[in-house]
């Protein structure tokens, strides 16, 4: 009897620890997957709205996006989309940097970002489109 109780305690501890580890790792994955779109050029503007995290992997899985270049696009010098090349790892501002030049109205980058998300969401009729759906308070 004592042995059975002993075993139950050990098994329960292993189970609980396991669940805990899974939850923790999920938490870490969640935290890792949380992108705050907050370029320094936009940061200066005190009027910007708060941003909730963008869950990159969950988003792409749900949306069925496998090709990185769907969002991380590259345009050539004639402003034509280069189909098979992608620009991940490169900050948006590297190309869309006109926003950095205008002092008080540094919203060009935000505008580009909004359009990228919203145009896709509208064409697929899925995902957030109005301001507050992403910029949660």
């Amino acid at each position, binding site marked *: 009897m004592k042995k059975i109780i002993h075993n139950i305690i050990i098994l329960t501890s292993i189970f609980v620890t396991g669940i805990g580890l899974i939850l923790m790792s999920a938490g870490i994955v969640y935290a890792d997957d949380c992108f705050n779109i907050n370029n320094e050029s936009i940061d200066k503007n005190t009027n910007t709205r708060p941003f909730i995290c963008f869950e990159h992997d969950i988003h792409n899985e749900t949306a069925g996006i496998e090709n990185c270049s769907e969002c991380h696009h590259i345009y050539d010098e004639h402003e034509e989309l280069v189909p098979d090349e992608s620009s991940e790892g490169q900050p948006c501002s590297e190309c869309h940097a006109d926003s950095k030049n205008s002092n008080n109205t540094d919203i060009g980058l935000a505008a580009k970002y909004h359009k990228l998300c919203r145009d896709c*969401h509208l064409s697929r009729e899925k995902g957030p489109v*109005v301001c507050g759906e992403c910029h949660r308070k």
Partner: protein
Amino acid sequence: MHDYYSFFTGPFAWITFLVFIFGSGWRFYSIWQLAKKKDSAVFEYMNMKFALRSIAHWIIPFGSRSMQINPAMTVVTFMFHISLFITPLFVFGHVVLWKENFNISWFTLSNTVADLMTLIVIGSCLFFLWRRIKLADVRYLTTPMDFIILFIVAAPFVTGFWVYHQFPGFAVMTIIHIISGEIMLMAIPFTKLFHMFLFPFTRGYIGSEFGGVRMAKDW
């Protein structure tokens, strides 16, 4: 949700702009025709100097005797009209939409100031509503349309406040906010709201008649 958003920010927005622009043009034309037919003296007595003098007095707070007699109305109406124009043009959420759709942008209000000015507009509309119901002389001149106009003007600000503070149902309210703004723009040519374009002419003519014919002040 998505198709409503697409429709009211797409085709319906363009219909709104067209109705606003061509409606206003038509309204100017029809008033011009009416004045020519019924009151051609308007054109003879119109005088730039007297017109500008009168407009100047009426556009400055407490610049006219009427405004001095009704200080509450004066303060509210100036705060109201300034907030009514400044807020939608310079609130950050709207400027970013100009940038997205037309690639132009300008100065933006701080969130706090925009919020405060929105409350000024809403509060002013309540004041105007109270005034229309409670003051006998104003009530005498009030038609049901005046209440509708008040509602049309207040709606974009009430919904805008709702959307910005993300009260329950704010996503749907954003669509209602867009529609309410479009209704207001479309109502301008066909209602008393047209005074936003007509006031220099009405005021200008009264100023001309008082200055050139009656030799008296009209402020």
